[in-house]
């Protein structure tokens, strides 16, 4: 402990020679110099500068975020408060035909959520499946390669995904759309005039699903990998098949991590612009139809990208206003993700004390919470620092487990 302090207090120019600061000969023992430096409570310039820089960075990000929010609000106000019915600028072009701002942004919010939801419905199970394969099924070598490939997917620019969507996915989905329309057209989702060019929300959401795979996969994989080995081995030793082991040991442990991975994927899907703008044939309407040409709900981000270049001043303000709504939605999604992640630890801490008999099954109470969630946050923050699964105290669960089988 004292060693640590002495090193920290040394000026950065001479990190190794701990004695210099107190004016003693460099040969002195660390312990002595540490005591000396603790006595003189001087603030070193290096300390001060580093602290200033790191605090400054933290403050800066807050200022930037507040600045963006402020910019959005200030720019959006003229359009939100304008009378859309009588305003000449808002009555033409992209904003024509809406009685007020909310009537304009409403369908866009729906389209944003709807396309992201479909993408999530397709992408999340696949992403989790890939993560599970990498962490629990694949041979080690293959797992490494596969993990690398999935991460590589995150580096593909969205315009490339957009072009891939236009040239490959759209024609690829046409037969499916025709079949769905012919056979399942009575379901409202597949109703309407079936597409001939393929630019449907289904195609857009499919590409979106591919785009959110890397986020969901890499976060889930990290969490699956950190399932306490003891839990897994215990399950296997008790005769569980691998699937049963995953169901009873891995999933409960990683539950909140999966949820936050999914919500972060959702955040990515909500903000995606280029691919959607290129693939989908949009209309500013509230529609859930999947395979039509003209009834695909437009998303906020794509709508801004498509109309910003020709927008007049007030129309720009209106578009920025829709951007403000997207900002709010994204903030809400991320906050929900955080709440889900952070809300668990308390119950997680309780669990080791009270393995109550009322709970549904022993393994479902396996440390659902803090560790997996903390890892999720770490991964999000860009640090893949691995914690120690040991602190979960798995002993009570294992004894209970015996009773179960």
């Amino acid at each position, binding site marked *: 402990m004292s060693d640590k302090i002495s090193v920290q207090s040394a000026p950065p120019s001479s990190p190794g020679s701990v004695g210099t600061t107190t004016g003693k000969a460099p040969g002195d023992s660390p312990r002595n110099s540490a005591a000396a430096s603790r006595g003189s409570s001087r603030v070193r310039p290096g300390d001060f500068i580093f602290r200033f820089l790191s605090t400054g960075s933290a403050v800066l990000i807050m200022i930037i975020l507040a600045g963006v929010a402020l910019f959005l609000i200030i720019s959006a106000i003229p359009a939100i408060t304008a009378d859309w019915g009588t305003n000449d*600028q808002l009555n033409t072009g*992209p904003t024509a035909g809406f009685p007020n701002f909310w009537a304009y942004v409403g369908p866009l919010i729906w389209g944003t959520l709807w396309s992201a939801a479909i993408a999530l419905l397709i992408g999340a199970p696949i992403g989790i499946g890939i993560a599970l394969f990498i962490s629990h099924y694949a041979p080690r070598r293959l797992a490494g390669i596969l993990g690398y490939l999935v991460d590589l997917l995150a580096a593909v620019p969205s315009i490339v995904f957009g072009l891939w969507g236009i040239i490959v996915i759209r*024609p690829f989905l046409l037969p499916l759309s025709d079949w769905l329309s012919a056979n399942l057209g009575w379901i409202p989702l597949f109703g309407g005039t079936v597409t001939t060019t393929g630019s449907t929300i289904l195609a857009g959401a499919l590409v979106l699903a591919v785009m959110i795979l890397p986020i969901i996969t890499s976060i889930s994989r990290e969490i699956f990998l950190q399932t306490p080995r003891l839990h897994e081995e215990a399950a296997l030793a008790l005769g569980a098949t691998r699937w049963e082991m995953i169901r009873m040991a891995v999933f409960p442990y990683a539950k909140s991590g999966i949820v936050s991975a999914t919500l972060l994927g959702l955040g990515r899907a909500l903000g995606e612009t280029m691919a959607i703008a290129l693939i989908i044939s*949009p209309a500013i309407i509230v529609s859930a139809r999947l395979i039509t040409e003209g009834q695909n709900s437009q998303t906020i981000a794509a709508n801004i990208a498509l109309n910003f270049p020709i927008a007049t001043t007030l129309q720009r303000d209106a578009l920025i206003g829709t951007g403000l709504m997207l900002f709010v939605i994204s903030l809400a999604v991320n906050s929900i993700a955080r709440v889900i992640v952070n809300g668990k630890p308390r119950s997680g801490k309780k669990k080791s004390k009270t393995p109550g008999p009322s709970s549904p099954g022993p393994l479902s109470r396996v440390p659902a919470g803090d560790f997996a969630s903390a890892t999720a946050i770490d991964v999000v923050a860009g640090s893949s620092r691995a914690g120690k699964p040991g602190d979960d105290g798995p002993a009570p669960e294992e004894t209970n487990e015996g009773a179960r089988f």
Partner: protein
Amino acid sequence: MKFKNVAATGAVLVTVAIALSACSSSSTTGSSTTAAPSTTAAAEATSAPLDASLTGTITAGGSSAQANAETAWITAYNAQVKGVTVNYDKSQGSGGGITNWLAGSYDFAGSDSPLKADQQTSAQTLCGTGGGLNLPVYLDGVAIIYKLDGVTKLNLSTETLAKIFSLAITTWNDPAIAADNPGVTLPSTAITTVARSDGSGTTQNFTNFLSASAPTVWTAPASNTWPITGNVSSQKGGSGVVQAVGAGSGTIGYADHSAIGDATAATINKVEFSQDAATAAFAAGATTVPTATGDLSQKFDYSKLTGTDVYPIPLVSYQIVCSTYKDAKQAELTKSFIGFVASTTGQKVAAKNAGSAPIPDEMLTKVLASLATVK
């Protein structure tokens, strides 16, 4: 040894490639520099000879329809005036071009529509009481492209076109289409109209045409965003429309003629698009409706575009300049560049490299006269 061989082959290939590229580039620059003076001599509309000693940077941007022509103009202009750098940012679109120009960041804006009244008012703070001048420098046509198996030639009357795009006709074997195409066997395929999902000058020009020429059928407003909802495939950009029309079947869409590539274009009232037909349309139907002194905003009278050699859906795009620049040097540079653009030579350069139609010489003379008043 083996490696050495590979290296040697590589070196040879590189040398050849360099030689080839050097060859091609020198030949193109050579021809353009020699061709330019000779055509200038024969031209009817010429600005003052370009001052090759000018130096500086022109910053401009806006309409993406003009982008290919701008590139051609800049290349040809720099062949004569080497010291001037012209930056044209097409990513802004017409609206962004005007916004940035009004903010003072651009020396001129490229726009598919002239300044609106309120924009002209704001322009007075930038350019003094004379306001901004809309100079028509780019002419093209809106092509109607389609893909229909078994039909290689298609003619559509204005009325039928309006019916198709307003979704009043939904199948290809509709009597109205059949009446326009005697002797052609039309399939019963459903029609899918393909429009622009982004706001665009092409949409503006096309809807101008439809609402003026077929007001009883086309009741939607003229707009820079596609006003029809329903079974419409909306695509981003002219290239997106061309792609979707080509990939579908029974599809029909509209795009700048210079951007349609290999797509099949229908004839409108039996007139096929050609550069001459677009120039003829401008000469026949365009009238100047000035919003300021020296301004040359154009309005098409579509009812006059009926001749057998007049393409009925022309598309005109402007360069917007200040009547008085705050910086006399920028005024000089901008006048020099647009003077070249609005010369017969400049129009030929764009026609050859960007597929646009030359503006009639009569109008070019007016543009140059307006430009001469710019201070």
